[in-house]
């Protein structure tokens, strides 16, 4: 071995002296737990990190007369549904499709069980190889509020992938390239994600294949959609999906919890949600929770109309200030948040929102500090 090689080995050994906690017993347990989780995920019996958009929305449709927890209205097929009231993909040869009241999925690979159950198609997306495509369209009726927000520009069929931008969904598996496109078509807000295998932007051929299926997106006239409830009631957990957006701020994480009304009717929120952070195994993290002020006094100076009640139209959102600080425990690359509404025990539907970050450890003996504000319109908190 040359002197240079010896020098390199010596210096690299020193440079690699990162602080690593090594308890073999703990490591074995962690690895076995991960392996079990991988197997469960494969079997589709659990859906860690999966946003159950479709299942929830299906549940919302059923809410009017049924809260028994039956399966939502999910159609997995290669045949055109003859009673479709929401957008869906007409399946071309070699494509499998599934649709619910709130999402439509098409893939040129076999759909995973979670996907077939109407959930976000992560179990299909993880199988993608070069040339494979999953199209996933989240749909909701357009409202005056969503039009005012301007997030869904007017579009027409067929939607074009040329208008999509590189993007994705939080919780998206690694090694997958995705593009995103939002448009309002015939009274429907369509948030389309195209997932491509291979980890990089697709070839022209693959893009053409994806476009050919996107051309088959069928959007029924909004008037035909069976909009069930009309009265404005209190939002139920299954009416909502939650997302969290936090930015690092002085070692803490600060931002907003956003809930979106995925039901087909307006509903009202008030008070502050309960937010329980968990690790990746859904184990609650020790926390002290406090209430904090809403954001509107800093932005508007005047209370939003109707506050502290916040009316949320279908497809619209409400927000709450969220601030977390001091985490000295293990960090498994992601913190999840279980969100419940005031007066409810069921958590807000869909997958628990999460962030791939943790606040800095500032007080080793103390639990994580969570501060949550009351619901308010997004313009105030955002």
């Amino acid at each position, binding site marked *: 071995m040359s002197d*240079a*090689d010896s*020098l*390199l*080995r010596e*210096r*690299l*050994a*020193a*440079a*690699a*002296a*990162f*602080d*690593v906690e*090594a308890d*073999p017993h703990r*490591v*074995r347990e*962690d*690895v*076995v737990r*991960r*392996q079990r*989780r*991988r*197997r469960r995920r494969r079997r589709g019996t659990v859906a860690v990190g999966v946003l159950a958009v479709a299942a929830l929305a299906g549940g919302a449709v059923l809410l009017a007369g049924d809260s028994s927890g039956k399966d939502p209205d999910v159609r997995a097929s290669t045949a055109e549904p003859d009673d479709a009231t929401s957008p869906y993909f007409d399946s071309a040869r070699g494509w499998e499709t599934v649709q619910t009241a709130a999402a439509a999925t098409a893939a040129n690979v076999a759909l995973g069980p979670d996907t077939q159950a109407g959930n976000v198609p992560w179990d299909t997306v993880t199988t993608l190889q070069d040339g494979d495509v999953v199209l996933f369209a989240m749909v909701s009726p357009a409202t005056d509020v969503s039009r005012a927000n301007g997030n869904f520009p007017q579009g027409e069929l067929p939607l074009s992938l040329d208008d999509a931008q*590189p*993007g*994705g969904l*939080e919780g*998206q598996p*690694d*090694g997958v390239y995705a593009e995103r496109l939002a448009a309002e078509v015939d009274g429907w807000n369509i948030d389309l994600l195209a997932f491509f295998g291979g*980890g990089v932007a697709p070839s022209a051929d693959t893009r053409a294949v994806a476009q050919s299926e996107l051309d088959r997106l069928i959007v029924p006239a909004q008037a035909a959609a069976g909009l069930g409830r009309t009265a404005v009631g209190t939002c139920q957990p299954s009416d909502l999906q939650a997302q969290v*957006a*936090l*930015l*690092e701020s002085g*070692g803490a994480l600060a*931002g907003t919890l956003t809930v979106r009304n995925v039901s087909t009717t307006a509903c009202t929120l008030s008070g502050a949600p309960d937010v329980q952070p968990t690790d990746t195994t859904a184990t609650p993290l020790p926390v002290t929770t406090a209430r904090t002020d809403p954001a509107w006094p800093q932005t508007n100076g005047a209370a939003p109309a109707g506050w502290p009640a916040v009316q949320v139209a279908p497809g619209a959102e409400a927000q709450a200030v969220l601030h977390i600080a001091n985490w000295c425990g293990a960090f*498994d*690359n992601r913190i999840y948040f279980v969100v419940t509404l005031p007066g409810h025990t069921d958590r807000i539907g869909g997958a628990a929102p999460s*962030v*791939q*970050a*943790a606040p*800095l450890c500032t007080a080793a003996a103390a639990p994580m500090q969570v501060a949550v504000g009351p619901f308010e319109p997004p313009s105030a908190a955002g």
Partner: protein
Amino acid sequence: MAGDHDFAEDLDRLVEHDYVRLVRAVALFSGTIEGAEDAVQEALARAMEQVRKGRRIEHLGPWVVTTAFNQRRSHARWAARQRERGGALADRRPDAEGPDADALGSQLLDLRAAVRSLPSRQRQVVVLHYYLDQPVSSIGDVLGIKESAVKNALHKARGSLLAALTMDNTPRSAQ
């Protein structure tokens, strides 16, 4: 074919004796300890899965590290895309150099940076060869490339790292 029992013994041995080195190897590859342990554990879980399916893993340690390298590389790409979008939170933890950065001399931090600046393939072979003491033939097997390609990548990486060390030795050592 190695059975579950043999593999369990291999896994025990690896966790007992080599775990810290493997995590540090991944940290050296990615430039930060952040996520390294997670990636190694996930790779070990994948290894268990592969063996249960009947696959034989010849070089378990290097296989685990290489799988973890790939995971970190995918994560870095994902995080970069998130940053480009400026939207959802990517990995925003501070502490890019690791918690012990302050305790290290600037030379070692510069060497970490020099490793991080190498192309991915060169980084893999450097860490596998110079840090984990893997022979060129094993590296070729694990990475699925020819020995000549391993040697070529090693040669280039060695030059870059030695140049970085040489630069280090002059002005900074006097400070």
